């Protein structure tokens, strides 16, 4: 996890386009300037970053479902629950399910488990649009290769 760069997902563990689900791993770093401020003497992964991690997980699922032709952007967060503290060094197992693929938007339900324990969940709305800049798409493709995005799993056509 490159937390300062908002690059939160380390590895795609499973992508099931038939079941419209994805599972990824994200390792919270031991050290970060973020933990110096949040909070001194009690470092915690910020809740907004946990929601962001669920959004990024959902986003990779949408990118797969749209054959890497569209870029998702977080638009709404509903029913978000942060059930327990997440601290430096913990490994997040994040899953997302595509509830609906609409025209220009997607709805997902995502959750985070730490050591098998349900830790966070939310329902997310993503706006889905053509990549607004080719540099963004190129960057996302680089990131996809780094986190093991299975290009070969994309449906052809």
């Amino acid at each position, binding site marked *: 996890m490159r937390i300062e760069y908002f690059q939160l997902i380390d590895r795609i563990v499973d992508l099931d386009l038939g079941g419209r689900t994805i599972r990824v791993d994200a390792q919270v770093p031991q050290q970060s300037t973020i933990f110096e401020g949040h909070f001194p003497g009690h470092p915690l992964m910020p809740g907004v970053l946990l929601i962001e991690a669920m959004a990024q997980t959902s986003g990779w699922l949408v990118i797969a479902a749209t054959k890497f032709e569209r870029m998702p952007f977080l*638009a*709404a967060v509903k029913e978000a629950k942060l059930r327990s503290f997440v601290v430096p060094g913990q490994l997040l197992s994040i899953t997302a399910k595509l509830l*609906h*693929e*609409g*025209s*220009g*938007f997607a*709805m997902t339900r995502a959750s985070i488990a730490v050591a098998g324990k349900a830790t966070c969940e939310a329902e997310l*709305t993503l706006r889905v649009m053509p990549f607004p800049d080719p540099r963004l798409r190129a960057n996302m493709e680089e990131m996809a290769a780094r986190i093991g995005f299975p290009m070969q799993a994309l449906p052809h056509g």
Partner: protein
Amino acid sequence: MMSSTFDTVANIISETCDIPREKITPDSHAIDDLGIDSLDFLDIAFAIDKAFGIKLPLEQWTAEVNDGKATTEQYFVLKNLCSRIDGLVAAKGAA
């Protein structure tokens, strides 16, 4: 057919956007009269897509409005929206 489509859509709008059901009529413009913005409309589209088993072509409609090829009234006055929904349902049945 049309009236039941309208009832379903009006109930969805009422529940999704917390708008009193009696304020929603076939002549209501979702944006101009009911004050529904594009983000809230995604929740409505989600519920309509699910209820009718269709996919409202929002991207196409938005592009047509932005290009001046259509007006928002053609898509977002509820009686017009309902007739589009009926058309999409019929097209799905014919496919």
